[in-house]
């Protein structure tokens, strides 16, 4: 079965994309398998300057999930262009550049620098990372702010712009509609839920950053709900993310209204999860009686 998916800027040979922050810039996973099997790759958030991120511990385990408070550690967009993109250019897969910043201008600056990098096929605005103070979080939780950053990024960008939304909001539909209206070419749902753990030995928060982003299977029902709600309210494609571990999970997201998916934390648990899903997905689609992948998209409300 042909499971290719065409989205703005992205010619995905299959709908499986490792999620930003969970795959670095591909180098480490390239030691395990050929990255060309992937539909695409959402690379780690890029900011204008280098960021060291938060102090450690940055990782905590939770029931069927994990918290992270990496804090957008990255070497800055110039270093990424110089040191990471040439490596990725070897592979036949679609690269989405995840863009982050501490203010709106940061987004524009990163986009302008990436515009003439042919390896980048689309942008993914991370307006939702909950781990940066005065950073993306504010933008992602207010429709006006989300719309505005989308608009100025669209103006700056020569490639399609996807907006990755925060699930830590009262009304996800309102925000999705706002970014659609502002010109977004697609929506990515969801980033992490804001959570916390305590270290019982000290009685203090386990993460040095106090709170962190919850990901993994635990959040899948929330992600599915948001995809389902937003898919019925907007006319741009949705990339679903949150707790995906297998081809059945992918089908659930397709049924909920996603056109493609990103796989995040599961890459840590099963480093071969993406190729496995790619192998299994046609079989699973057949098992449930689909003749092609489009039939599955949004079936839950169609």
């Amino acid at each position: 079965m042909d499971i290719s998916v065409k989205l703005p800027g992205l010619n995905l040979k299959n709908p499986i994309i490792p999620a930003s922050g969970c795959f670095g810039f591909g180098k480490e996973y390239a030691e395990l398998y050929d990255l060309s099997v992937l539909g695409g790759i959402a690379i780690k958030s890029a900011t204008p300057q280098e960021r060291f991120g938060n102090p450690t511990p940055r990782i905590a385990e939770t029931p069927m999930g994990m918290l992270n408070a990496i804090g957008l550690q990255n070497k800055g967009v110039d270093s990424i262009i110089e040191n990471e993109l040439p490596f990725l250019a070897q592979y036949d897969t679609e690269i989405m550049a995840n863009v982050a910043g501490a203010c709106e201008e940061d987004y524009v600056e990163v986009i302008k620098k990436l515009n003439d990098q042919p390896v980048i096929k689309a942008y993914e605005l991370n307006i939702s990372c909950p781990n940066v103070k005065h950073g993306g979080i504010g933008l992602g939780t207010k429709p006006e702010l989300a719309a505005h950053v989308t608009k100025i990024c669209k103006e700056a960008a020569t490639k399609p712009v996807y907006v990755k939304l925060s699930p830590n909001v009262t009304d996800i539909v309102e925000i999705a509609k706002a970014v659609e209206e502002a010109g977004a070419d697609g929506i990515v749902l969801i980033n992490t839920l804001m959570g916390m753990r305590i270290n019982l030995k000290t009685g203090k928060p386990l993460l040095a950053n106090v709170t962190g982003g919850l990901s993994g299977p635990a959040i899948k029902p929330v992600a599915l709900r948001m995809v389902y709600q937003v898919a019925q309210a907007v006319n741009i494609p949705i990339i679903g993310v949150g707790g995906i571990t297998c081809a059945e999970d992918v089908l659930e997201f397709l049924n909920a209204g996603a056109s493609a998916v990103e796989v995040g934390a599961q890459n840590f648990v099963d480093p071969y999860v993406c190729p496995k899903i790619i192998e299994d997905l046609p079989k699973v689609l057949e098992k449930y009686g689909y003749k092609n992948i489009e039939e599955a998209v949004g079936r839950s409300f169609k």
Partner: protein
Amino acid sequence: MKWGNSMQEFAKILSNVKIAKDIWKMELKTDLAKTAKPGQFIEITVPGFYLRRPISISEIREDVLVIIYKVLGEGTLKMTELEGKLDIFGPLGNGFPIEDKEEVLLIGGGVGVPPLYETAKQYLSKNARVTAVLGANDADSVFYVDEFKALGCDVYVATMDGTLGTKGTALDAIKENNVTCNFVLSCGPLPMLKAINEQYSEGYISLEARMACGLGACMGCVVKDVEGHSLRVCKDGPVFEMGKVAL
């Protein structure tokens, strides 16, 4: 696998036994042993838990890997019950370099001891003289003294409560026994490594960190070097040159 190699395997658990207070030893039959080096680690999936647990490779025998683990929390507690198959991923990290040395000093604290065992074996096979200093809280927690001796190491023990060997830390045992070797390979709790990092200038230390991916992609496990650059414990380490890391 048709799309690449496989560093993941369902290893067969050959044995899983208690060897000291809260300390267990597990022998795993796995092809991953073939590429393993001393000081590397594997990531273990414990049924019921989401993230893998990083555990050092203690011994490498053809198609067998031996690990030694301490019951610290829920995951390692669950490991004591396991039999049958174990989902492992590895070997990961850089490992201890096996250099040309006449003499090496291994300093292990607690479950920092296990990776030093294969390290000792490989240095001994290159005819180095190996001294192993093993630190623990009390006599009941000490393990592998005889095993290191059987390899041919000089072994000294330190316990915090003085119930075995020198009373105090591994460094106290080194002092008490006038161990003079200056090339040190060490693994153990952070305070011990800090002291060693100050006292010695030659050799390597192996660090621990909370990990997610274990292979260098997530930036979960970083430490800073003395110049302020960040290093990933899982990929750039867990073994670092003495003095390189800001502890």
